[in-house]
């Protein structure tokens, strides 16, 4: 069994932190695959649900530390939205441990690697995500074709 972990990383802090983990050669599990977003507040709850629906076993959203957001206030919105999403996951009967929100700065390469290793281990303990799959969230082909 190999779990699949999707990490949404904001461009300014966490993505740079992941790069620093790389330049520092800090090893973490290859299960983790990163999607770059400008700010953690760009992460729509729908993206996370879509990831779970399509076979992600864990999703982690990473942004700048509170107060350090490149866009001043973006991560406050992230925090608020994630709180309600945790509630929704519970309502859906999903383990909330499959989702995590973490603040990782551009200088925290070690924190990035450690967090990814620890989160992957946590998701591995839960096993494959089988409670919520399928096409619950739709990005219709028409929408895709328009490129919106």
């Amino acid at each position, binding site marked *: 069994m190999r779990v699949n972990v999707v990490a949404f990383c904001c461009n300014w802090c966490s993505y740079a932190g992941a790069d620093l983990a*790389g330049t520092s050669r800090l090893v973490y599990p290859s299960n983790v695959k990163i999607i*770059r977003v400008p700010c953690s507040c*760009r992460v729509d709850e729908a993206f996370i649900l879509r990831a779970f629906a399509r076979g992600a076993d864990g999703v982690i959203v990473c942004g*700048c530390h509170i107060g350090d957001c490149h866009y001043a206030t973006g991560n406050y*919105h992230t925090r608020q939205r994630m709180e309600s999403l945790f509630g929704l996951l519970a309502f859906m009967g999903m383990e909330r441990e499959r989702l995590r929100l973490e603040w990782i700065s*551009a200088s925290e390469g070690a924190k990035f690697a450690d967090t990814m290793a620890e989160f992957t281990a946590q998701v591995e303990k839960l096993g494959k995500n089988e409670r919520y799959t399928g096409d619950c969230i739709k990005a219709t082909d028409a929408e895709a074709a*328009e490129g919106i």
Partner: protein
Amino acid sequence: MRIGVFVCHCGNNIKATVDAAYITERLRDDSSVVCSAEFPYLCAEGGQKLITEAIAEHNLTGVVICACSPRMHETTFRKAAAKAGLNPYRLEIANIREQCAWVHKNKEEATEKALSLAKAAIAKIKLSQPLFPGESRVTKRALVIGGGIAGIQAALDIAEAGFPVDLVEKSPSIGGKMAQLDKTFPTLDCSACILTPKMVDVASHEKINLHTYSEVEKVEGFVGSFTVTIRKKARSVDMTKCTGCGDCLAACPVKGKENRKAIYIPYAQAVPNVPAIDRESCLYFKNGKCKRCEKACQPKAIDFTQEDERITEGYGAIIAATGFEAIRLDAFGEYGYHANKDVITSLEFERIINASGPTGGKLVRPSDGSVPARISFIQCVGSRDATARGKPYCSKVCCMYTAKHAISAKEKHPEIDVEVFYIDVRTPGKNFEEFYRRAVEVYGVRYIKGQVGKVIGENGSLRIQAMDMLENGRYDAVTDLVVLAAAIEPSDSAKKVAQMLSSPIDANGFLSEAHPKLRPVESATAGIFLCGMCNGPKDIPETVAQASAAACKVIGLLVKDQLTTNPCTAKTDENNCSGCGLCAEVCPYGAVGVISHSTAVNAALCQGCGGCTVACPSGAMNLQGFSRAQIIAEVDALCG
């Protein structure tokens, strides 16, 4: 869509862990991929040529580069694509170096992940749109925050190039820490003699607008067009009337902190030479009675009713030069800093030996005014200390200024016994090692390798207990004056300034440069530049070099009339928009306007965070370059 995929080996950096040939081959399975190639160094001229030629030859409409982080070479490859006639925003990078080859050991796993990252990039590029940067006007004026040697040098260089500069300094005079120094290492130049002419140049330069006793309060806008609010604190002295005669100082009855009057000029060479009233110690502000300074002032410059004034000004670029402080020594009880008057910090020692300092340059003990028979310098107080109370880094200047202090003490009183406790003596720099050797060989300063465990007051003297590592024994002796080389940390205001500038700070609170090697004076935020100690410990020559470099970058920006703006901005689909305005509420830049049941994004203000796109309940708002469909396509590719 006709997509070309290019896989970089990065020498062995990628190739050693990722099977580049395999992913190059496998990516051809996608029917949209019309060409795929691997190359040892895609960023090199040959690699870029390969890409531009392929764009022309295969008439590519999209390019995916599997290489290092987009933070490294996205601009390089986008420029190459544009040269070949492809819209640069139809190029995506799969980060298979920093986020794959360098962090995974198993080649098979890393190859699979790299393939998956490349597929996600292909999925994203399929849904990309050509994007066109807009243009924004450049305000040809610079702001420098901090009036120490870094800020002074930067302001002078920018002004010399012909651009107006506002220099903001929180204290009543510019000059910063360098103005407090007696001499500078390793040449023993008189600090004031080399600094004060520059301070006068700043004050008299027609292009420099000096705001002392002022603080930056608010920063809005973006590169080329910042709007900054500066608070000019009430000085209680009318700068236009004051002649700097000093009669008010003589009249003031208060003896406040450091023997300072309530109305004070920080030091004799202060620029501007205009006093300020410290309202916390002024008798008039405390008790409503006194006003002796007002009576003494002939030009009638004293103004007790003065209030803080706020000015708002536009700037094209901002330099942060907020400087440093020595750490507080509360947590270092073993050195007895608070318990004994004769335990002082290096900066306090600097003031004691300075001719314009409180003792007039007489090297005496603070407790009884006697000349010490022995002085003990303790290095690395809080530096190279990974515990919670200390700083993990080397403060860089302490070894050299301590050698300078030791030499200065010996110059004044050759009979004084001078000892230095150190962990390592670090002297990388021009003439540094020679200077240190001179302290040891010519002046007879004793260097003791070992950390001090305790400093105890004893009959008006001080007892030092330490380890002498070279003698492999305990050191226990009496001394008269202890000087602590307290670690350096960013100044109190650095964090606040960094937040206002959206400039990232590192784990130690120093403002981070955009790239430690290749972009050392730029912040990650466009239009914000750094110099001096706010960016990390450094000595005066390095600070001046960095300040000039930052000024050079600012000049390079201000000579432009227009800047191209990031086209990855939000966009409203009017057909789906109800005009609820939730998007406008979350926008930190006021870029979204609600107009008669719809919204419109001002692309010049939008910075592309995407917060509005998620706040929008009807999906009418989208972010170009990171559209909903694109991110979902990436998710699908990575999860599939």
